[in-house]
């Protein structure tokens, strides 16, 4: 049953086997898996069902189906993922992901997803940055919409209770495990309690910690902060992906994503001098994987657009995201940028009808929001905060966190993508580990007897915390706090980092935290966005501190983490260590390193001679 709201009562309480927080692709897939395993499931989301960030995913879902390149295998997908992640990925996660993604994609088709087709009538796959072969199953450039709609219809049909526009603010803890979650209806402000045998966090990312981001208001690090406060560990939080191509103009849409599919379909990056600058930024050890000349790159694009195989190698624009972002940032900083502070991305040399068919929503987005016809001229693009590789530490097989009863999946979890995520791997990640985590959570719940007991003292405290900002007479404005946090993180913890900046950021975060403790809002509880923002800013402060402290801890550059004071990749000291954050004594944040999970010899062999 769908529940937009409930009548008043003492405290609305819904005991369940499995509570899933977040209804993007990961949460939906986990909820379906838990339900299929026989668990009762409640699915809670901050927005309406079907509006989560998955809907914004454009380019496709990576899976070695081998429909376009018959030579593609899970082993090659595994290698690409590890190489893209600078070998910091949890190897078991990368292995499971590559092995199981094809089945998870086929399953979507069985549930009604309508992917683009090859000439022989099978699911079409497109090339993407860092992927050796054309591997992304897609629907034009609205793949995420297709996926979320398919999963949403499946979940509702499976009889999962969906609590829309409901925010979780606290996890309740028992002596042995997480016992459930407390939150409130955004529509009415009334509190709600979910005693749960297992709780799955599928809350997505942290983009709203930054000023320029492709993420919506929802991405406030809720799951990471809830897990941290409940004593679970976060890993690799220094690795924040700045997507190379966000819109830079007009101001209202700065940061809005321009899909990598534009480059996958042949988009060329140029600076203000008209130079195709990516030739200069290809890492030497991977140069052989890319075209050597404009002519070869063009041959590759032509073959791709006709769905044909070719011996031409891929264009330099399809380097990994971390590398392309740094290249664009450097071009702009050195004065070769476009009028609005980006670079040019040009797909207009291809036939207009082809561009409109393969990139319909990009065509619309630029026409409607920027008065630019991408079939006639170049777009202006620049880096935008897009994704966090780090997150809640999980077990590869089941999605279990370091706290019993608590699970995490999707962008909220960490480990799968290492130091840099390949495009297309997030949609496959959420399917593969959504299914595994839902099953894992259901199995954990089945091992417990009776209903989950929730400590009433914790519930009362959580309830009081909701009321405080409404009752305080004068105080800090949550909108101003969020603005100050975002501009500080953009300035001090962005693409390039240096110790002095990170120290300054940690100091500023302490000051912002003190201001947050005095935040006040008016306007009551009914659908009050200012009041909602209070709790989101609190979460953002926690995860911003985790990012800044982790970034300070890792004194090397690797993947998306670039230290100007430590520009080298230091394999000897850092190549086999994850950064771990957890709450220590007196609620101080502790940072340390732990050894990367060992890679079995059979997997290591797949990485080839270079590694």
């Amino acid at each position, binding site marked *: 049953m*769908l529940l937009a709201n409930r009548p008043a009562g003492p405290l609305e309480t819904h005991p369940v086997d499995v509570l899933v927080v977040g209804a993007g692709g990961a949460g939906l897939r986990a909820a379906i898996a838990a339900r299929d395993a026989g668990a009762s499931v409640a699915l809670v989301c901050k927005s309406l069902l079907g509006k989560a960030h998955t*809907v914004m995913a454009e380019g496709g879902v990576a899976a070695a189906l081998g429909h376009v390149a018959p030579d593609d295998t899970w082993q090659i997908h595994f290698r690409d993922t590890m190489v893209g992640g600078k070998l910091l990925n949890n190897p078991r996660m990368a292995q499971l992901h590559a092995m199981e993604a094809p089945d998870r994609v086929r399953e979507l088709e069985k549930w009604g997803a309508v992917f683009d087709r090859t000439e022989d009538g099978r699911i079409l796959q497109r090339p993407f940055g860092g992927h050796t072969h054309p591997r992304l199953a897609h629907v034009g450039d609205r793949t995420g919409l297709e996926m979320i709609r398919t999963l949403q219809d499946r979940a509702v049909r499976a009889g999962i209770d969906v609590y829309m526009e409901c925010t979780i603010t606290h996890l309740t803890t028992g002596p042995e495990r997480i016992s459930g979650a407390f939150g409130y209806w955004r529509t009415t402000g009334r509190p709600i309690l979910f005693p749960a045998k297992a709780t799955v966090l599928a809350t997505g990312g942290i983009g709203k910690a930054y000023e320029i981001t492709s993420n919506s208001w929802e991405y406030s690090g809720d799951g990471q902060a809830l897990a941290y406060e409940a004593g679970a560990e976060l890993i690799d939080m220094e690795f924040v992906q700045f997507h190379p191509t966000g819109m830079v103009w007009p101001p209202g849409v700065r940061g809005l994503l321009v899909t990598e599919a534009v480059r996958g379909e042949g988009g060329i990056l140029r600076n203000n001098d008209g130079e195709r600058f990516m030739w200069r930024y290809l890492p030497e050890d991977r140069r052989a994987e890319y075209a050597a000349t404009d002519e070869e790159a063009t041959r590759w694009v032509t073959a791709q657009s006709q769905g044909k195989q070719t011996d031409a190698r891929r264009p330099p624009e399809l380097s990994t995201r971390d590398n392309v972002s740094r290249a664009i940032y450097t071009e702009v900083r050195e004065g070769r940028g476009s009028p609005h502070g980006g670079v040019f991305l040009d797909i207009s040399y291809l036939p207009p009808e082809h561009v409109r068919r393969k990139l319909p929503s990009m065509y619309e987005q630029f026409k409607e929001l920027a008065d630019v016809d991408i079939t006639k001229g170049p777009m202006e693009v620049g880096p935008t905060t897009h994704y966090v590789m780090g997150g809640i530490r999980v077990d590869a097989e089941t999605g279990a966190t370091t706290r019993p009863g608590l699970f995490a999946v999707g962008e909220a979890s960490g480990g799968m993508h290492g130091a840099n995520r390949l495009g297309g791997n997030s949609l496959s990640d959420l399917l593969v580990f959504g299914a595994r985590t839902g099953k894992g959570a259901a199995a954990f719940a089945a091992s417990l007897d009776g209903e989950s007991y929730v400590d009433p003292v914790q519930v009362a405290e959580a309830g009081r915390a909701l009321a405080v900002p409404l009752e305080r007479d004068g105080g800090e404005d949550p909108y101003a706090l969020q603005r100050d946090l975002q501009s500080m993180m953009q300035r001090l913890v962005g693409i390039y980092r240096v110790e002095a900046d990170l120290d300054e950021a940690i100091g500023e975060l302490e000051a912002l935290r003190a201001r947050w403790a005095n935040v006040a809002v008016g306007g009551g509880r*009914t659908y009050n966005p200012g009041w909602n923002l209070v709790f989101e800013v609190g979460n953002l402060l926690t995860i911003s501190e985790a990012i800044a402290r982790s970034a300070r801890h890792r004194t090397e550059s690797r993947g998306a983490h670039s230290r100007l004071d430590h520009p080298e990749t230091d394999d000897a000291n850092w190549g086999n260590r994850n950064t771990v954050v957890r709450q220590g004594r007196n609620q101080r944040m502790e940072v340390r390193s732990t050894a990367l999970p060992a890679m079995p010899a059979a997997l290591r062999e797949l990485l080839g001679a270079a590694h």
Partner: protein
Amino acid sequence: MPDAQLRVFRGTPETPGRFEDYTVPVEEGMVVLDALHWIQANEAPDLAVRWNCKAAKCGSCSAEVDGRPSLTCKTRLSDFDLAEPITVEPMRAFPLIRDLVTDVSWNYAVNKTIEPFSPPDDVPQEDWRWQQRDIERVQEYRKCIECFLCQDVCHVLRNHETERPFMGPRYLVRVAGLELHPIDQADRRSYLKDEGGIGYCNITKCCTEVCPEHIKITDNAIIPLKERLADEFYDPLQWAWRKLRGEPAESAAGTPLPVLPHTDLPPAADGGVGPAGDAGGD
């Protein structure tokens, strides 16, 4: 650049609704949603606005701008005469929650009554093959971002002076996407006729006009479905064949639609235009 005057509906079902005027500084390329965010950040922190992607991909920020159902994230201020106030109201077809936010849960309840995709049991998935041209139409239907603007503008849902329910254009589009899937096996025709109330649609095309995804809702989804029904129920040969084979014409689903609750908003301060009104600069 001149400032914009926004006249925004404020209120809840319990309090009398009112329009409040805000003066918003205009930047190049600004959309109505940017202006609403400016109001939240500077004048009214509790102004209720539903939004997510701000890129016309999620369909959350639907409202009526100068009487026209619109996505506020893609409605440009430069399309309006800024000498006049721009009126922003919630969707009128759905019950008010607060300010610009309405309760759209009825739509989700309707969706649940639709029989899902039903592939054949006897063809293994490895053998599923179809061409791109076979699914172009289905993919058009599946572009829908569920903004519910078509539901909002639909005069059958807006007026619903009848007890008989109508599922509305959004869900006719969804059913069309299932019915025209190359290998779907289910038959939703009785459902469309009875529970879905497709007969209530008299093809005024208001829904097509407001669709931000440019889905040709009436021509490409509703009319083909109506034609299928005409073949099924009014073709004498089909009728005779059904009788001979003894097939019931009853729907397999048989779930009645939920009832759409009534909603009443006060009239706009300047007497905002009705459904599919053409005020507003686009």
